[in-house]
């Protein structure tokens, strides 16, 4: 796992959930962290701005999209992939 990406994503999620970074675990779901649907799109916006990437996320098809938001860990993986693609 890309540690720099992981650290930054966790910071952004913690900020959005108004909690401490230590409370954000890799297997936490957005729901468990108190991130509702509005906070989720705001988190994705923060991720896009922070990494200068375009996240293919549609709130209507959360399970069918390439960007897996099931847990903090899957989000980090997906962000890391997008960051790597950007470098290609």
């Amino acid at each position, binding site marked *: 796992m890309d540690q720099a990406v992981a650290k930054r994503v966790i910071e952004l999620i913690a900020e959005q959930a108004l909690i401490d970074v230590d409370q954000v675990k890799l297997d936490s779901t957005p729901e468990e962290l108190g991130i509702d649907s*509005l906070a989720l*799109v*705001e988190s*994705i*916006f923060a991720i*896009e*701005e922070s990494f200068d990437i*375009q996240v293919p996320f549609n709130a209507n098809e959360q399970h069918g999209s390439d960007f897996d938001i099931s847990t903090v860990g899957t989000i980090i993986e997906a962000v890391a992939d997008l960051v790597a693609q950007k470098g290609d």
Partner: protein
Amino acid sequence: MRRVVITGQGTINPLGKSVTETSAAFADGRCGIGELDIRDVDRLTVKVGGQVRNFEPDSHFDRQELALYDRFTQFAIIAADEAVDTAGLSRDEFSRSGAGIVLGTAGGGLNTWDDSYRKVYEEKKRRVHPFVVPKLMNNAAASNISMKYDLIGPSFSVSTACSSSNHAIGLAFQMIRTGMTDIMLTGGSESTLCFGGVKAWEGLRVMSNTACRPFCATRNGMVQGEGAAVFVLEEFEYAKRRGADILAEVSGFAMSSDAQDIVNPSKVGAARAISGALRDSGIALDDIGYINAHGTGTTVNDRTECSAIREVFGAAAETLMLSSTKSMHGHLIGGTGAVELLACILALRHGIIAPTINHLQFDPDCDLDVVPNEARQAKIRATMSNAFAFGGMNAVLVLRSI
């Protein structure tokens, strides 16, 4: 027919951040208009406006609220909080009675449009904040207040340019009168003082770059303002039963459409709204002691308005007082009628007639008592508030003491 009374009022506008501060400014004839302090003001031709100064949104709202509330919503919530507080009503009572909210606004979240366009067009950003839509929509203020106070009844926003607030208040009045609800929140809010908002108005060449001087022979146009006012309207018996402090009765309302010109006002259309409101109110012509004029400070509006008043009031026009408080707070467009209703309530409750300030020279086309420059003390029984919008849509309210 059920009677409707006002039991709460709240505001934030260029003259003050409460009804008390605003009333004091009306009584002192104080001007809230000054040099605009907004981004890119150097690229504007019009550089004056009635801004709400020393306003710190973060002292009123938390981070999540700020992400969702455009400035016009912030103003509306602050005004609603004061109105609810003075009415002494609880969230429970609103919800139990099925209360609703109707608010006027012309521009809605114009600052949000402006900032977002700037990001994608000027700064070439790839995206805007995800809450842009819920923030800029015209019903955002009414919706956020409905959530705060559990207003589960008829709720929507009204947009008829400069008449928005009067239309909103008139509709809320009719809903209570006809038995749809017992309690309504109503009023209006506007915040168009941003680069795009002022630039658009510059184009029409109707703006003054010095001051708003309604009814003065040397007047040279309107000045934009910003802010909000919100009222609690209640069915009379309901208010009496709970021992509410009744500020005034809303006794008449009428609307008319000129159906003529998209910007030029019509004397006939204005006169029909004025006489309609009087008829609806059932009071005599000479009961009206004070009219809060639309009085924008443009050559055409002020002349047409005075002429329409003369036509309806005839001899009674000689004894009534007419003033435009826009000379002090500017033209709040969709929020203006709400802030101006505060002057009507002040006149009924405290006998203080707010003046038309900046009046330098008598204009024979506006030969009514326009209460120039200094407030007056007078005991009056009823007042009228005029709003004549671009697009020819007129809305006039009549209030009386109780």
